[in-house]
């Protein structure tokens, strides 16, 4: 009797306590003393990681989980400076173009070794790229090699490959090779920072499947073990020659079933870094973690895209889309509905990317209901006076879609509803098959930090990322010209011009740039620094020495 009753009271009290703290938020971690104590150069960091979808082969990591690990094990030719997007050399001594940027010469820093002790040579790169580009080897990122001459021989649209070598790759000597492209690309060196361009050791080609389970790289960390769905261990590679030597002893990547589970382990210092604060804790995490809360912008943009193949948007006056854009109150929505996890977008290109121009879209991304209404009227109105925004319901898109719709409805009187698809697969299916009824949610994370990546790869008529049916000859011509420009500066400038063309056309309505809302444990010394791709720079993270 007594036991039963008191159990009831405990449950009741717990519910009240839960409600109270949910409003107030705990402040016990307010002052965390991040910089007190000493750093231990051999300390092990624990970081959250989902199970990589594919084997750990450099060209096979389309999703962020696999590529997060691969980037610690492999070092590529180049990397980027966080914040500015400037190119830096890692394994390459130089990457130089010829006069029209169609032939590139790569010189490697000598003396580099793979983790198994074999040297990193020009051959390691050429063999790796030839193997990864081959359609038969089923690497999800194989299309990254399509700029190289001879790509269609190893990766035909149909049937078996004619060759297992791309004619564009030539080894000059042990430490240098040349890349001949199908045409000039002034920013080709920038593309080389992506995971797919990593070198592979000889032993890889003997058994690629086994190598995918136990990768041998040339990076700052060497692979130790992969306990599937539980733990991946990498440890500092002592003979590493690169500029980004690890400042910690290694990383244990731990798998979590939910963001909530990871967050509660972070708070109890069982985990040092999480990838994203769970939605339920977004309002309180800064109070919970104090200085240890991370809130950093990265180069990704979210937009809503009109489906230009529909009757509604086929011959639309761009003024209508501009009007819709001005009807969205980005400031309020990012602050309230999205809890400050995004910042309002003012251009097609994300911040931190070469060629980003603050306020490139001018007034079009500013909230102005009167002008929005006027523009839509001038443009002849929205056909049917009703739009819908397609999104996938398996991620938390619904709140902001509703808010955007609400904003449009209130400002302009245009009816707007969310068009929910059950999951991401179904959403993509409708986009690929051109079945979107009105507009859809689009997102883009940078591949390489040059503004072309946010324009040509999305809005070019034949661009693979263009699923809206948008086409503008003038833009295509300008983009082609920009790619052939003699210098990178010229390319970037021309793409800035192209952005103004897009502004008149409105192939999409940019909404906001993404931010990282994450946290670090009390074991981390100093604040974790992030790269432009939204992942921490793990080699720079320092672990506190145990007292």
């Amino acid at each position, binding site marked *: *009797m007594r036991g*039963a009753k008191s*159990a*009831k009271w*405990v*449950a009741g009290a*717990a*519910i009240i306590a*839960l409600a109270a703290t949910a409003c107030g938020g705990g402040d016990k971690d307010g002052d965390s003393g991040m910089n007190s104590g000493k750093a231990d150069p051999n300390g092990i960091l624990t970081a959250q990681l989902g*199970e*990589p*979808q*594919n*084997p750990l082969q450099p060209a096979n990591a*389309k*999703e962020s989980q696999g590529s997060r690990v691969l980037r610690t094990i492999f070092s590529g030719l180049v990397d980027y400076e966080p914040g500015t997007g400037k190119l830096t050399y890692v394994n390459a001594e130089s990457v130089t173009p010829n006069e029209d940027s169609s032939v590139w010469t790569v010189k490697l820093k000598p003396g580099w070794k793979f983790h198994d002790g074999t040297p990193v040579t020009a051959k390691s790169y050429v063999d790796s790229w030839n193997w990864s580009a081959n*359609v*038969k080897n*089923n690497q*999800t990122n*194989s*299309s990254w090699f399509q700029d190289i001459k001879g790509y269609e021989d190893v*990766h*035909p*649209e*149909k049937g078996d490959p004619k060759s297992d070598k791309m004619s564009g790759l030539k080894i000059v000597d042990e430490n240098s090779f040349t890349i001949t492209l199908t045409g000039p690309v002034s920013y080709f060196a920038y593309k080389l920072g992506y995971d797919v361009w990593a070198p592979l050791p000889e032993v890889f080609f003997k058994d690629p499947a086994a190598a*995918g389970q136990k990768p041998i790289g040339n990076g700052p960390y060497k692979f130790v073990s992969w306990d*599937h*769905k*539980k733990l991946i261990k990498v440890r500092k590679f002592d003979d590493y020659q690169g500029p980004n030597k690890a400042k910690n002893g290694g990383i244990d990547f731990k*798998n*979590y*079933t*939910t963001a*909530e*589970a*990871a967050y*509660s*382990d972070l*708070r*109890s210092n*069982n985990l040092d870094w999480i990838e994203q604060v769970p939605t339920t804790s977004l309002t309180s995490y800064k109070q919970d973690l104090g200085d240890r809360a991370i809130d950093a912008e990265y180069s990704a943009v979210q937009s809503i895209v009109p489906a230009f193949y529909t009757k509604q948007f086929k011959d639309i006056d761009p003024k209508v889309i501009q009007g819709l854009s001005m009807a969205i109150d980005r400031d309020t929505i990012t602050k309230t509905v999205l809890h400050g996890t995004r910042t309002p977008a003012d251009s097609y290109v994300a911040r931190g990317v070469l060629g980003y121009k603050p306020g490139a879209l001018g007034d079009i991304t500013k909230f102005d209901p009167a002008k929005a209404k006027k523009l839509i009227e001038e443009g002849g109105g929205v056909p049917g006076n009703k739009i819908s925004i397609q999104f996938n319901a*398996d991620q938390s898109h619904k709140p902001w879609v509703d808010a955007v719709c609400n904003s449009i409805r209130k400002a302009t009187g245009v009816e707007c509803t969310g068009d929910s698809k*059950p*999951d*991401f*697969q*179904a*959403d*993509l*299916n409708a986009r*690929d098959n051109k079945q979107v009824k009105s507009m859809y949610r*689009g*997102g*883009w*994370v940078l591949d390489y930090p040059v503004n072309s990546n946010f324009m040509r790869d999305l809005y070019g008529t034949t*661009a*693979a*990322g263009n*699923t809206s049916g948008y086409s503008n000859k003038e833009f295509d011509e300008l983009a082609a010209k920009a790619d052939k420009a003699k210098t990178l500066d010229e390319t970037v400038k021309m793409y800035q011009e192209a952005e103004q063309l897009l502004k008149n056309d409105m192939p999409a309505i940019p909404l906001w740039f993404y931010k990282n809302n994450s946290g670090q444990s009390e074991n981390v010394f100093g604040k974790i620094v992030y790269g432009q791709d939204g992942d921490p720079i793990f080699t720079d993270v320092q672990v506190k020495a145990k007292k």
Partner: protein
Amino acid sequence: MGRYVARRLLQMIPVFIGTTLIIFLMVHILPGDPIRAMWGDKAADPAQVASLRHEFGLDQPLWKQYVDYMANLFQGDFGKTFGGRQVIDEMSESFPVTLRLTAVAMLIEIIVGIGLGAWAGLRAGKAADTGVLIFTLIVISIPVFVLGFLARFVLADTLGWVAPNVQDSTDYAQLFLPGFVLAMLSMAYVARLTRTTFAENLRADYMRTAMAKGLPRRRIVGVHLLRNSLIPVVTFLGTDVGGFIGGAVVTEGIFNVQGVGNLLFKALQQREGSTIVGVVTVFVLVILVINLIVDLLYAVLDPRIRYA
């Protein structure tokens, strides 16, 4: 008895084929292509998509995919995940974890549930009985995930008695909290069921006879009453094993247990047909076998029950 078991085993075959077929069709009827989805928002390369679809046999007609799948299954081959691992490896890593969790939950359910039920049943109508009824009613009305979060919040985040998550899924001590949460709901049902049958059987003729014979109370309750009251409880416990494995999807998620619920959830998200069908196939087998065991247990509890 032997014939009964043989007949039951034969009955399993059509059930088995039917369930796998339904799951197989359901996975494939969903819109969207899991291979295409590997590319996400970015554009997919059609040649590579075609090559991957071929590798996983997704370019074959559906009936052939099913026939191939079943043919491989009978040779013990559950197929491959998109990541290139054998589904059987994935399952042999996660099933023991869930079985351990289920065992912990089952133990709690049996000891606490039957104990509480017997205690209340012997005091039917008294304050203790009412207390148990109210307590179990509260437990039944709280959803498992609320209970899970509440337990973690109070015991781990506020009091700091336990780690918030399971760090090592092979450690029984760490599995106690998730096991307890998983068992709570069924425990309440078992307690109520036991209480009712106890209260009813107390008034049965054989009880009066036993008492009249002057048997000690311990023997009356422990053998005569308990044994006769357990039949409905055992039935419930049997069906509950299936419920536990299903409920583990939620509990494992909350407490970070890398078990089969988690495996199934991730596979569903990625639309990984071979894993989904494989896991459900094993589920079906487990439930069929448990049902058989429950039916056979009846005879142990009550020798009057005969199998024909």
